[in-house]
């Protein structure tokens, strides 16, 4: 199923939980994984939880989450939930939402 990579244990009560939907080896999907990993390593030293779901392998989960385009990144917690679409090349938006929020 998904590749789970927990980089570090969250310290706060409300841990940062992320879920990234990708479509196999599609260029945008691969780029998104790369971009997200780099961003997390750089900007989220406090740790987070990231789940990567491959739509091609598990379409029903995508349906449940209402995923339309790939790649899509979901911020599950802390609330409010957020959704980022695209290959995450524009990290400024991520930073604004994930780091300060």
């Amino acid at each position, binding site marked *: 199923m998904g590749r789970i990579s927990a980089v570090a244990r969250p310290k706060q009560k409300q841990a940062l939980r992320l879920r990234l939907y990708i479509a196999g080896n*599609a260029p945008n999907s691969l780029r998104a994984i790369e971009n997200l990993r780099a961003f997390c390593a750089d900007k989220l030293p406090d740790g987070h939880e990231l789940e990567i779901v491959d739509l*091609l392998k598990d*379409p029903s989960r995508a*349906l449940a989450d209402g995923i339309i385009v790939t790649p899509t990144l979901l911020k599950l917690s802390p609330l409010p939930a957020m959704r*980022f*679409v695209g290959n995450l090349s524009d990290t400024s938006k991520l930073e604004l939402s994930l780091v300060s929020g």
Partner: protein
Amino acid sequence: MKAQAQYAPVKKMLTGIKGFDDITQGGLPIERNTLIMGGPGCGKTVFALQALVNGARRSHEAGLFVAFEESTKQIVANAATFGWDLPALEKKKLFFLDAHLTPEDVKSGDFDLMGMLAVLEAKAKQIGAKRIVFDGIDVLLGLLDDPIAERREVYRIRDWLTRTGFTAIITQKIDGVEAGMRYSFLQFMVDCVVVLRHQVVDGSAFRNLRVKKYRGSGFDSDEFPISLSSDGMQLTTRGPMEFEYDVTDERISTGLPRLDNMLHGGYHRGSNVLISGAPGTAKSTLAGLFAAASCARGERTLYVSFDEGAAQITRNLKSVGINLAPCRKSGLLRIYSTRTRGPNVEDQFAALRRLILDQKPRCLVIDPLSALSTKVAHLASADATQQFLDFLKLQKITVVNTSLMDGLNMDEATATGISTIADTWIHVSYIVQDGERNRALTIVKSRGTGHSNQVRELTLSSEGVALTDAFIAQGKVLMGVARWEWEQEELATKQRNEVASELARLKLQISQAEAAARLLVVQTEMEVRTAEIALLATATGSATKLRRTDRAMLRKMRHADDDVRLPLLPRVRTRGVKKNGKVASNGTD
């Protein structure tokens, strides 16, 4: 669909959109892509949804509906007006994918549709769907916001559709020329393009549909009016090429005996009658008469009024001796009063059709039909009227339509041209003379029946409606008081004439008697002459006999020889010589 395949190389699926399946000779191409283009509110979503629903309901084919613009909840709710029972279909046959991105979604970099297509493919396998709708693809493309990416994703969808063998309907909103140009490549990529258009003519909105392209199939490329009703979308096409309705010689009463006579027996059963005239010319009254007569025959009757409520119509007609109340009570007559709701003629006619199919009347009154067309003198409305009348013909319904002619078009022509379609056209006009306004009724035409060419005066009173001969004097039609005066004068003249002729008769009788008397005198004279002649003859005969006897006696007395002969009657010979001046050749006797 099998039948269609025989003459169409492309396999097709019926959309269930009335009219569309006709102009495309069988519907949309199977396992191919169709693009529905149009401005906002044209009915793109309805078109796509109806095709999907029709497949699910008639062919039990499952389908996917991908909504990019509206939420699926909205779509299902909006479609509730169509009576398709989407919630029930949704459980088994239809799957709605909410694919509209919310404004909260943050766009960060390039993305593609691979994920969505994977999800859809999985779902299609699960429910066995063969049909798919992408509703509002322009919204999706707008999100990509990059011409290259847009094209890439569109081709991705096309390749995916080709691979999976879906029959696809893609809708695209076009707002003005610019947007249409931007995604024009969509049109090249699909096999069939349908353009919907919202058009405003003289402040009235019309929806039209046109098939722009259909690879591998013939189609009617004209634009056709669309109407939306509770059954969904339908197209007003030109209808059947041949008029295939039965005709009958049966006549039914107009409700006015004198008018029946003028039409040589009444209206033809199943024909359409147009009663035109200015306001107040008793068009509704004539229609009411027809309705009452129809009810009297025990036939179901529907009276559609765009002017007045049922109670008002009943009261008004009662004032001229037409009592509809018992017919309404018995249910034979149904009066349906409505305002013309909006100017869309197609919708109005669709509503009327449903009402008629529901009520199944044998006789119908539409008062006035012009309410459906006067607002817009548009070709579409004439077409729609014709189709509606054809529909009635097929149902064998006799219809009396009234048509209002206002001051603008008094020249015996109606805006919609219904006058040319009408089988019988009765025109009622006002004739103003000598300070009066009177109604004059004429039959302009009546197909398949002889009819009077006379102008009649139509009079209304509490005792009823009547047609009276109008008099023509000095080149003018006389009506009202003028006619009454004329009638009185006629009566006086008639009386004078009667006296005069009686006198003449008596005089002649005298002459006759005189002649008879003279005849008697002459006859008597004749008899006298005859008697005289007879008397003369007798006298002459006796004289001759006497002379012979005398002669014989003389000879005897003279003792004459027997061979002496004396010529007889020398007197006669002598007379003949005297009279003619010569001796008769054979005067002997």
